[in-house]
């Protein structure tokens, strides 16, 4: 199995705190913080595009890796909020990197798209060599900042993350994964006619059971316990949900890296933004296993195990 070589990210500079959002959705700043754990989120400028912010994260990742775009064998781009349904942002990001023939594919799956990208990259790297995975979202354009839309409007922010999966070198080796799809509940989480729709109760109910189950499956078949895991990197959906997953795994929440308080839920970008911040904040060599996990539209969910090389 290949290696995780580097991460990267890009966040728009505009910060939107709960004080600014509260009157738009007819709620108090305290309520927003209590139900979500979010203090502020970033919003893209009117001139930003999903492909544009994805390109920034892609460049940041390549810079962190000390790699050139010309070395890439493939690009995978996850987004549930792309400006154009087809073609999605992947080909534009490849063009932005100066690539004219490198295959670049879209993964139109909100929230779980980056996890799917990482797992596909790990599978394809043996042929492609180096695969760049990007998650880019401008979700603020897909939600309604109105009293009727407050349950989803308060959660989302904009941003992009990236990861370089390399068949030859990296700081952690991808060791195993599990990925699941269940279309029978697809309606609880969707983007339709440009607007994001979510049945919050149902999503939390599914996610709080499916994510721990997927993680436990990986741990069990690799003879690992949750206590042996160095860090859990999850889709940053909601701080309360991450607490539930930690509780279900009977693991201290401190092992779960979170940055949702500062960025909100950036959908498919969140896993890679979190991974990039986690990686930058640590100075020591990786000593234990890493678990990545996400849940999103489809429904798609799963987990990935990476171990020190």
């Amino acid at each position, binding site marked *: 199995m290949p290696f995780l070589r580097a991460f990267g990210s890009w966040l728009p500079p505009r910060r939107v705190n709960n004080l600014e959002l509260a009157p738009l959705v007819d709620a108090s700043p305290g309520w927003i913080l209590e139900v979500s754990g979010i203090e502020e989120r970033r919003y893209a400028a009117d001139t930003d595009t999903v492909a544009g912010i994805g390109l920034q994260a892609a460049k940041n990742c390549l810079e962190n890796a000390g790699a050139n775009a010309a070395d890439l064998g493939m690009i995978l781009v996850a987004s549930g909020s792309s400006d154009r349904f087809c073609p999605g942002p992947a080909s534009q990001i490849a063009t932005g990197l100066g690539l004219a023939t490198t295959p670049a594919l879209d993964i139109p799956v909100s929230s779980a798209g980056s996890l799917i990208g990482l797992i596909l990259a790990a599978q394809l790297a043996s042929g492609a060599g180096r695969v760049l995975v990007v998650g880019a979202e401008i979700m603020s354009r897909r939600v309604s900042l109105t009293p009727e839309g407050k349950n989803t409007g308060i959660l989302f922010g904009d941003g992009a993350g990236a990861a370089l999966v390399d068949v030859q070198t990296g700081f952690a080796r991808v060791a195993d994964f599990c990925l699941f799809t269940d279309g029978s509940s697809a309606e609880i989480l969707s983007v339709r006619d440009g607007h994001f729709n979510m049945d919050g109760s149902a999503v*939390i109910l599914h996610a709080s059971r499916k994510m721990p189950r997927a993680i436990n499956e990986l741990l069990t078949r690799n003879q690992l316990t949750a206590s042996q895991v160095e860090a859990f990197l999850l889709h940053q959906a909601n701080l309360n949900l991450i607490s539930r997953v930690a509780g279900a795994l009977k693991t201290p929440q401190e092992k779960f890296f979170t940055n949702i308080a500062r960025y909100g839920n950036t959908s498919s970008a969140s896993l890679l933004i979190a991974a990039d911040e986690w990686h930058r904040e640590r100075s020591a060599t990786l000593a234990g296993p890493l678990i990545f996990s996400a849940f999103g539209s489809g429904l798609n969910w799963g987990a990935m195990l990476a171990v020190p090389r």
Partner: protein
Amino acid sequence: MEPQARILKVLQKVSGKEISPGADESLFVSGLLDSFALADFVTGLEEEFGVTIPDSDLSARKFDTISKVEAYLAAKS
């Protein structure tokens, strides 16, 4: 213990509240459940009644009153 009493026991445990809603009263309106407590409620029901609730049944509408929960569990047994 009757099924409704056992359901109420699980409810009060996950919500940490001693209130007893009517059988057809919304558990969300009564303040016993929110989106996150609902997940614990479903897990608590599985443990209390020794059943497995499949993912295909994970809908808040199935668990929003004691009567609905009782009917659901009766159909499972």
